């Protein structure tokens, strides 16, 4: 009897394991575990920790105590913080719009039959390939107050008498870093939109031509609507990259002159690492989250397939 019941229990145990391994829900969770662990460790934890630090008065080399929303309160009163918010918006909006317009234009040029097409496409990708720090250094030199190549050319051409103080004057500096960001960001927009353009069947343009559409009307009624889904994705990414930009600014101006080019990302770094106020820096970084979420939501709705893209399921 005893022997029998023991082996019976064993059978039951094996049964239970087998059943678990055949359970789809359990298997699904099991297989998701590695990815979930990675995401939790490297994404959720730093993000959560950052938010937590923003609620403390932690400094470099000294643990902090929970202070609630005090850091945010300080920021709310801080004109430099509001200046950085303004700068970030100016930087993002102006650079993104120009990157989109120029990128689309470049993509359409490259979509035509051009001589040396492959070569030209490679050239277009150059700004994207060069490490940002390197291109920032190059721009730093181009914008130098004494040795700027732009100033030199303008003076040689007799158009100016003295050098331009690109990075010394607040508004000059703002436009200068925006120009550098545009230069750096165009390839991404252009190449991605080019990929989108190539999915549009040439016969649609021919049909539209026969239907009497001018070049502008073909762009307006064929290219633009068919490109919308890709534009939504590209521009979301472009906005995210621009909004969180750090390298270009930090190398070229460190946020100067007089904070005129401080973006939220650079200000956060300066307060947290350079200035040592981790709590305050974290609060500035956390303040970026709502804006980034808004951009992601924009992408979420932009990414949703248009009615015309799907089959017969909706009416």
């Amino acid at each position, binding site marked *: 009897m005893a022997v029998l019941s023991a082996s019976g229990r064993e059978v039951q145990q094996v049964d239970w394991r087998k059943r678990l391994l055949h359970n789809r829900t359990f298997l699904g969770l099991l297989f998701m575990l590695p990815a979930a662990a990675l995401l939790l460790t490297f994404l959720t934890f730093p993000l959560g920790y950052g938010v937590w630090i923003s609620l403390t008065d932690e400094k470099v080399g000294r643990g902090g105590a929970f202070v609630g929303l005090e850091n945010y309160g300080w920021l709310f009163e801080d004109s430099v913080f509001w200046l950085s918010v303004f700068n970030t918006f100016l930087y993002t909006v102006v650079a993104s719009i120009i990157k989109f317009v120029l990128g689309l234009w470049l993509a359409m040029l490259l979509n035509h039959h051009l001589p040396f097409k492959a070569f030209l496409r490679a050239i277009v990708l150059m700004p994207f390939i060069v490490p940002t720090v390197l291109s920032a250094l190059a721009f730093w030199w181009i914008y130098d107050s004494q040795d700027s190549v732009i100033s030199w050319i303008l003076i040689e051409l007799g158009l100016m008498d003295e050098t331009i103080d690109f990075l010394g004057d607040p508004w000059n500096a703002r436009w200068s870093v925006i120009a550098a960001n545009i230069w750096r960001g165009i390839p991404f927009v252009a190449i991605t939109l080019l990929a989108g353009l190539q999915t549009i*069947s040439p*016969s*649609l343009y*021919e*049909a*539209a*031509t*026969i*239907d*009497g*559409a001018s070049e502008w*009307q073909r762009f307006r*009624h*064929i290219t633009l*609507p*068919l490109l919308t889904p890709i534009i939504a994705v590209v521009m979301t990414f472009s906005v995210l990259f621009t909004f969180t930009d750090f390298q270009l600014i930090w190398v070229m101006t460190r946020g100067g002159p007089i904070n005129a080019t401080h973006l939220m990302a650079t200000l956060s770094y300066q307060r947290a690492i350079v200035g040592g106020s981790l709590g305050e820096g974290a609060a500035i970084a956390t303040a970026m989250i709502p804006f980034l979420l808004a951009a992601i939501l924009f992408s979420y709705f932009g990414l949703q397939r*248009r*009615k*015309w*893209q*799907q*089959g*017969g399921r909706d*009416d």
Partner: protein
Amino acid sequence: MASVEIRGARKSFGSTEVLHGVDIDIPNEAFVVLVGPSGCGKSTLLRMIAGLEEITAGEISIDGRVVNLVPPKERDIAMVFQNYALYPHMKVYDNMAFSLKLAKVANGEIDRRVREAAAVLNLDELLDRYPRQLSGGQRQRVAMGRAIVRDPQVFLFDEPLSNLDAKLRVQMRTEIKELHQRLRSTSVYVTHDQIEAMTMADKIVVMRDGNVEQAGPPLEVYDRPENTFVATFIGSPAMNMIEGRVQVKNGAARLQAGDGTLLPMPPTAQARDGQPIIYGLRPEHFALTGDSAGVQSKVAVVEPTGAETLVVCDLAGGEVQVLFRERHHFKPGQPIRLDPVAQEVHVFDAESGRRLN
């Protein structure tokens, strides 16, 4: 409605000439089919009429007006594309209305014309759908509807049925023909399918390698092909071609095939004794004989289709296809005697391929 004249039209892509001086007359209200194997230049020619390709040399005129330099939208033509080219982001209604909107036609008039065309093509129920939500045949109809609403002088069709399955193709073939009979609009239709060409055309233009091989009414092209290319291209199953030499004996000409078999020739053939020729005979022009008349042959394969029986036979050292309207229950290997109908024989010069009778 209008006629279209093509005079000495040439087209080169870089240094490659794909059309070598083509002359075609497309009469007013006619349904003309350009047919030929792929790469013969038929689609290029159609696109030249549409204005999508430049004309390298020669002239194309529509309704008496030379259109070489006229942009597509001013040519008053409409085109149905092989892949339909429907605007995927527009509903059926907007696809059809697009050209009228661009032409700034009044909204009421647009609505009237779209609904009229939709009624003709049975698209009434589908006006509110996107192209993705339509079947192949429905998309095809929308593409035609888009052409009809414009009421153009000339309709151009670029292999419009080649993306449809066999059954639908036959059905749409009839629909297009009916539509043409109703609208009486001048139409140019490109296809590689000779059955489509035969069944739909008022006039067939057979093309090969950038040249017109023959043009004329379908049955005339079928009955009197001018060369071996047209003879074998038009007609399915294809015409049998037997090589041999002319043998004149007692004033009567016969063909001596490679293996010595003698076949009767039509009295009209202009051929010398000993001249090498190609002897063409359509599969339906063999008679089955029981007596000593005709030529000895052996059944190789029997392909009954119900309405007809296609028999592949060994004859004169090669294989010929023979089509019987009545049913036969032959066995492979069975000997039969076949009598070629002499007045239906096509005689071609072996060297040039030109017709001799």
